[in-house]
């Protein structure tokens, strides 16, 4: 899926997984993007 561990979080149930965790067959996971944008440059609060 070409996901970067720096910008995504993978959650299985209530567990946050790291890149070393192994998924089992039929595991359901949620992939959350941790990147947000749209903040203005320059004056930047």
């Amino acid at each position, binding site marked *: 899926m070409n996901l970067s561990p720096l*910008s995504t*979080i993978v959650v299985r149930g209530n567990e946050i*997984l*790291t890149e070393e965790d192994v998924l089992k067959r039929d595991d359901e996971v949620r992939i*959350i993007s941790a990147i*947000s944008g*749209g903040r203005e*440059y320059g004056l930047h609060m």
Partner: protein
Amino acid sequence: MGYICKLCKGRAVIYMHHHRLALCGDCYVVWFLKQVRRSISEMKMLFKGERVIVAVSGGKDSLSLWHALSRLGYEAEGLYIDLGIGFDSYSEKSKECTVEFAKKISRPLHIVSVKESIGKPIPALVRGSERSPCSVCGLVKRYIMNRFAIEHGFDVLATGHNLDDEVATLLSNALHWQIGYLARQSPTLPERDGFVRRIKPLYRFTEKETAVYAIINGIRYIEDECPYSTDATTIFLKGILNQIEERMPGSKLQFYTNFLSRARILFEREQAQKVNLRPCSICSMPSAEEVCAFCRMVERAGGKFVGLKVTKLENSQTDKGARTKDEE
């Protein structure tokens, strides 16, 4: 076999390559709070007895910041700016997350409506302006946050900017050699005439780290991206910086902290004599021109600033500070 927590040997939920540190959920929260306390102290952000307002958007960073400050004993109040972005019910959803969180930690929340204060919501201001949507929104938010803090007697304004925000901004400003902006990019901007002190206590955390803090603590935040920001340059720059970080762990933090310790002062000196602020002839807030950028933008878009329209939700405090999910 996943990572093992360095402190308690339990199952780790995060491995931070740049710190070479794996932590479980409980140890991560303790570590996170220690880092926030350290940033506040080292960067002289907050002092005893000061009133602090946290600008909250309903996103992971600002809600995590408010949560962390509450956990550390700061009786911070929240300020939510209703931008009036109807697309995908963005403003509605973000407000809902913020109101729910304020109730959960029993802290007062102030809500300012852009539409009621200026006569037009952000989308209408964007249509009437030559600026980019992020620039219009940033200008409006900065103006409202500062004006609100001053009018309501707050000493400090805290925002949830994280390391990725700061590094992306630094890179953009350096690419264009924006000396004035580089001179003022700092986790603490001291108060001066017409401006409250502005602080960014999360400046050492990556976006992923603040998101993990939010998830562990059961903070429900808006995951949707602002509909105006989908093509934002920020996201592109953050992606590039993460590619560098993957190849050279620690680059982002080092780039920013070295800028703060070695380079920023040079830009600050260069800029020191150049900016003379005076009261805006329309709204009296500090301005480099006769009419401030906010008033010019509002006028061009056909709006009229009639004063901040604020709703306050008290959320009477029955307990002190926020609690983690496990404590509830």
